[in-house]
């Protein structure tokens, strides 16, 4: 085993299948309720809260790790427009980078994932960058 997390830079560039997600009004309302988002459009389920893309979960072949050992270091989302109820979003996630760094807790692995979502015509709707820290 190369390092604690068992992830190597060979994973860089690897990506998920393209997955179609339908943005359901009920899922928006459930999400808004869970985070107590009072934005009227979100409470009604018309528009998704900005962090709703976190519900689009995909797997990347070969990328596995122990969830309980993962820290979410940072997250960014960029938006062309909000997600709306009824949207059909084509998403894909890829490994943008993997690197090791020594920190207070010893050797840690940083995993950078990039997600992109577009409409059925291929127009981008949002993109996101996740930094996960594996210890």
């Amino acid at each position: 085993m190369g390092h604690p997390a068992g992830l190597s830079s060979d994973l860089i560039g690897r990506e998920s299948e393209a997955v179609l997600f339908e943005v359901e009004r009920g899922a928006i309302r459930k999400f808004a309720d869970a985070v107590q988002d009072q934005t009227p459009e979100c409470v009604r389920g018309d528009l998704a809260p900005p962090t709703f893309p976190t519900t689009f979960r995909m797997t990347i072949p070969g990328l596995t790790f122990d969830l309980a050992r993962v820290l979410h270091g940072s997250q960014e989302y960029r938006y062309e427009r909000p997600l709306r109820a009824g949207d059909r979003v084509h998403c894909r996630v890829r490994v943008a980078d993997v690197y090791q760094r020594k920190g207070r807790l010893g050797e840690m692995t940083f995993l950078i994932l990039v997600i992109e979502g577009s409409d059925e015509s291929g127009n981008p709707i949002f993109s996101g960058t996740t930094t996960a820290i594996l210890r």
Partner: protein
Amino acid sequence: MTGPVLAARPDQDLDSGSVLPELRKQQITKLQLVKYAGASGDFNLIHTDDETARAVGLEGVIAHGMLSMAFLGEYLCWLAGPESVRRLSVRFVEMVRPGDTLTCRGRVKERTTGNAGRRLHLELWAENQRAERVTVGDAEVDIT
């Protein structure tokens, strides 16, 4: 319902350094973490099961970092309207636990003018009841 908090503000109230109104959230509960796990699909048990959390050296369950980011997302919607959020970027710097109460705060870093009107570059953060910044970041919103 009134419109976004910042929409009608004159330029001079949105200059660099202007302090934004705060949004105080309700106290975080274990029930909320269970609901967030279900709504988001993040079933990492360190957020909902004390036994799992202790097994990895925590005192008990901690909130999903993304929950605090969701609070900041709502903050942007409240400030600028949900159609106007262009970017939100955060770092999760401190753990959040059930019982914590977070308040979203921020200030204007820069105001620029584009073809869509005014764009605000914001510094923003969520802080806990001890005024510790737990999630920090920056954002861009368009306002009319």
